[in-house]
């Protein structure tokens, strides 16, 4: 064993590199956070904590309130007709010109949502028919909203100018296609 130790001693004959400059370079390459910088980090964290605590105190005291968000009902029903009731149409007719000339109609239909969810109003599914069931050319259906909430009523209305069906202008019901 002493022979082995002697042989290991031969390692002492090896020339070794001077690594101190390399050590200093590596040490300075990744210096830890300085005390001054650390101080500012702590100050920033403290300020954030104070702001958070103040905000929590204001909210807790009721001085500041979160914005009230209404809970949305389930998504609008896919079908227009679900829970939707259509009232009798109100038709207002007048003849702006001389007798025998074109008659103008204003058709108003109330749509009441008697269901529990929102319903989408698709105006394209409505048109106005005369007594014979023939469509009366309108100027489109208008309403204040595309959807009707539960228990709410919306109105569809349209204006019609009809030169040939003046006698049928009054009291025409609106019908679904």
């Amino acid at each position: 064993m002493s022979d082995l130790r002697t042989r290991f001693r031969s390692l002492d004959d090896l020339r070794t590199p001077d690594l101190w400059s390399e050590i200093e370079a590596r040490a300075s390459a990744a210096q830890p956070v300085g005390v001054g910088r650390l101080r500012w980090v702590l100050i920033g964290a403290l300020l954030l904590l104070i702001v958070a605590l103040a905000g929590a105190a204001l909210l807790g005291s009721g001085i500041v309130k979160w914005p009230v968000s209404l809970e949305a009902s389930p998504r609008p029903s896919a079908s227009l007709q679900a829970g939707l009731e259509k009232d009798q149409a109100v038709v207002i007719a007048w003849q702006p010109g001389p007798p025998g000339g074109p008659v103008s109609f204003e058709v108003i239909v109330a749509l009441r949502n008697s269901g529990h969810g929102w319903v989408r109003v698709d105006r394209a599914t409505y048109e106005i028919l005369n007594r014979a069931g023939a469509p009366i050319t309108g100027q489109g259906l208008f309403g204040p909203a595309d959807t009707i909430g539960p228990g709410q009523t919306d109105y569809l209305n349209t204006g019609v100018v009809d030169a040939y069906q003046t006698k049928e202008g009054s009291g025409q019901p609106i019908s679904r296609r």
Partner: protein
Amino acid sequence: MISVARDSAVGEVEAVYRQEGDRMWRALYAYTGDEEVAADAVADAFAQALRRGPAIRDVRSWVWRAAFRIAAGELKRRSTVVLGAMPEGVAYDAHPDTQLLDALQRLTAQQRAVVVLHYYLDCPVRDIARRTGLNPARGARPPQPRPTAPACLAG
């Protein structure tokens, strides 16, 4: 105050390097069989000691342990090529006793560490684990150590 303590720590680290650096490099060279790995481990261990500054109580023990762990990590990284042995193609031109280094190459990394620490640095086996983090019980166990603790790992 902090600056003074840091300067003092730097001075201590440099003093330990001047005293132990050469032997540490040679021990790591015998352990790894690679001059560059040995130099890298020494430089990295002392650089980390410099960065930690006064946080290290016993610089000498700390750098020895760190250097061997760094070298062991590097050997482990390289062991994807050759498991448990020194990398192939290692040249021993720097050391004339190629027979000794060849014999070391046939040992596992842990066995090499124990043998080098014990026979070159005269470290008692019971201190090898404590000082280096390596477990001699899992490696080669050389004959019982001499009663006196070597200076290399004292601390």
